[in-house]
């Protein structure tokens, strides 16, 4: 029983971090119908930078997200302005190829700059745990989860309570309608992309503590995150949250009762099963434009 509770709690903690990482992907897809394959590479890039900061200044890796997040916001804005916006008129599949190419460029640069070795940030509390009754929770997991939830809550407030956020949501639901009431689609798209990229600032910093990484790890991450987004329903933020929880739980439960090496496969199996019965994903609405 304790084992089950331990697995469930751990699954939720991991799921929270996944939710943050996937939220940027869902946001960008919702507003622009662009799948940003480079999101995983962004995460690894931030993790590398965080690791470097921690190594040289001793700054806490998770707290380093205060620095990385605004940097990534600016980075995302630039990427949108100089890459993504240039192919807005082309078919959406070109954006997949463009961001895929960009992910490779980042991987290649990281290979050259940082070398092709596994890294992991190990702050002082790295091996400590909180104990609640018979279950033990690694401090890194708890801090990571708290940071993720905090940022998700902030994102939620931005999206629902500010004019910018409402503009982003309006554009994602009805671009031409939003344009009519004075919301410029181009500016909003840039903001949404920058915001979506900014989430990797926090996500990458958390990643550097929780998981070992090296430049080519971004494939594993992007396929996990994309899996979450497909499971939840493309473009749906609540869907991404639920998908992330499912992944977290699938991983910890498989690791507890089966073997760690099957955990990712179990998740892919869950995705295929869900798609078998709900082709549009858990929360994916069939949009009016989807009508054939």
């Amino acid at each position: 029983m304790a084992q089950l509770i331990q697995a469930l709690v751990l699954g939720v903690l991991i799921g929270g971090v996944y939710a943050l990482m996937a939220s940027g992907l869902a946001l960008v897809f919702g507003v622009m119908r662009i799948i940003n394959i480079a999101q995983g590479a962004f995460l690894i890039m931030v993790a590398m930078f965080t690791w470097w900061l921690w190594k040289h200044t001793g700054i806490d890796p998770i707290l380093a997200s205060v620095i990385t997040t605004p940097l990534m916001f600016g980075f995302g804005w630039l990427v949108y302005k100089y890459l993504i916006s240039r192919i807005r008129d082309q078919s959406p599949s070109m954006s997949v190829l463009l961001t895929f190419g960009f992910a490779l460029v980042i991987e290649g640069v990281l290979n050259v700059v940082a070398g092709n070795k596994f890294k992991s940030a190990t702050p002082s509390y790295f091996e400590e745990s909180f104990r609640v009754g018979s279950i033990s929770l690694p401090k890194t997991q708890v801090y990571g989860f708290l940071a993720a939830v905090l940022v998700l809550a902030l994102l939620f407030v931005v999206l629902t309570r500010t004019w910018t956020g409402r503009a982003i949501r309006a554009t994602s639901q009805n671009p031409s309608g939003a344009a009519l009431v004075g919301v410029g689609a181009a500016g909003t798209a840039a903001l949404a992309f920058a915001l979506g990229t900014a989430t990797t600032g926090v996500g990458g910093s958390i990643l550097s503590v929780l998981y070992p990484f090296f430049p080519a790890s971004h494939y594993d991450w992007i396929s996990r995150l994309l899996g979450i987004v497909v499971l939840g329903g493309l473009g749906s933020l609540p869907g991404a949250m639920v998908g992330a929880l499912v992944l977290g739980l699938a991983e910890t439960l498989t690791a507890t009762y089966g073997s760690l090496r099957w955990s990712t496969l179990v998740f892919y199996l869950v995705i295929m099963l869900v798609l078998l019965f709900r082709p549009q994903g858990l929360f994916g609405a069939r949009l009016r434009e989807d009508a054939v």
Partner: protein
Amino acid sequence: MTRLEALVPKRLAALPRRHLIAGVALLLLLLYPVINPWQPYPQGVMLLAFMLAIQASSWNIISGYAGYISLGHSMFLGLGSYTVAILAMRWGINPLWLVPLGGVTAVVVAVLIGSVVLRTRGHAFVIITIAMLLAAQILAVNFRGLTEGSDGITLELPFWSKDYQNIPFYYLFLVVLVLTVLFSAWIRRTKFGTGLVAIREDEGKAASIGVNTTRFKVVGYGASAFFIGIAGGIYAYYLTFLNPVGSFAILGSVVIVLSSLVGGKGTLYGPVVGAFIVQLVSEAATVYGGGSQTRVLIFGLALVAVVLFMPAGLLPTVETWWRKRHPVDVEYTDQAGALSAGALSEGPASSRERVETRDRALAEVAEAASDELTPGDVLLEVRGVSKRFGGLVAVDDASLTVRKGSITALIGPNGSGKTTLFNLVTGGMSADSGEIWFEGKRIDKLKPWQRGHLGLGRTFQVTRLFKDMTVQENVVAPLPDSHWRTMFADAVSGHEAARARELLDVVGLGRFAGERAGSLSYGQQKLVELAQVLMLEPKLILLDEPAGGVNPSLLGRLTEVIHELNDRGVSFLVVEHNIPLVLELCDPVVVFSRGRSIAEGPPATIREDPVVLDAYLGDDWRPKPAADSAARPDPGSSPTATETVKGVR
């Protein structure tokens, strides 16, 4: 080119230039090992280029023709390799005998994945393809009993003497490459290939003309896996060693995508040309440019650069440039062809023959429309159907009947739910409640293409032709039934193409058969769309504003065709705002307002119905005192249909 033409026989010279060049290139590649037999290194580079070309050319079927990008296609290479290696180990026979099974495994896996993921439109597919590639890698690592896990499998060495080096593999890959290109060319020639391109251009429209989009995509995905699986089997024997990381490498997928993109995705030879370029550049980079570590960076930069600066790819870019340098004269005088009612086809045929062609084409369409129903029976029945979009009720408990042999009009103000009703009837959207019956069958749960196969065709308010296809391809694309034989029928020559030509002649656009559909005028596109629907052998045609944006003379041609088809038993449901046309053409007339019908009857009654005058027609149509009734003004500036038709003749 003249020198070349002097050298080759006439029949060869008649082939398109690109096939000639491909043939010469193939000849050189066949001769190369004979001319230069003791050079294993260049042969090795070449055979890897062949393998990449096989993969890129196969990828092109699902991602180029159908537009569904796969980023995990190297998975099929690994599947082929593992199938062959495992079975060769177990059964103790030479791997080459098992190569076909590698292809079979690849197809089976593709069809399984495809039938889960390809049922919907959109982006889930590309995402799943990446996930499946990584999943395959994890499986290969974890299933130790079968795959030896990360240790990998070592195969027996080739049985031939080391002196021959790579030559047998060189020819094996070359043969598979030729087969792959022929296979791809054959697919593009069939209605299956036309359907795939239709899906890329406009998937909703494709479904409405009888293309079973799910089946097409799944079969396309399966077809794109076969030769890669075969190549994978040969590759395993060539390497004599395979492991999970090497066999299911994402970089393998990157070079596939990059090759097709560089050469020109969606074209026959583009992926092959691209594969040679990418393989040679990659080899040069490895030898001269700091080893394979930098390859990721180079491929990434190349992919970004191609997407940004040459998205169409090399071959299409060259072709556009060539066309600009060597413009071909096209007759743009359409009016004469479209308008002279008798002169329907091009060429020296007598007008009598032309009329016969047209009669035969129309008769063939009408043949499908004839059935047990007699004129006057209920053909289409809409019972209490509703559709809401959020708070807006677009169609509100609407009922409507179309009788066999009628031309029923559906008129009403903008936003009264006419087009939404069309979408519900043809399956573009599903109703929230209510039933729709066609020929005594309930159809509201059927897929759009199933409704098309039953004989329900439609045109769109704003034409939705496949703009990058030729006019003829547009008309060939529809599938009147769900038979596999129809799906694989030849679309370029033979019966289907001939019918398409005849139908184009019927609407007077035969001479535009070879033009890009997007280059036609709006009114001409409307006529092509009508011909396209006729290919579906419909019993009932739903026309959404057929007269919108069509000039009066073409409109005359349109009403003429509608009349002729109707005389032969095809029924119509017409949404139209050109009231004089409606009153002249249609009987009965149904008036829609606020999502339901408010009046129905013969045109004469409708035009005087006070409810209709209030809701839609307005005061201009209110009966005036008898004295000036002859001088009743027409709303808008459009001439009446009667005048239009007279003006034509």
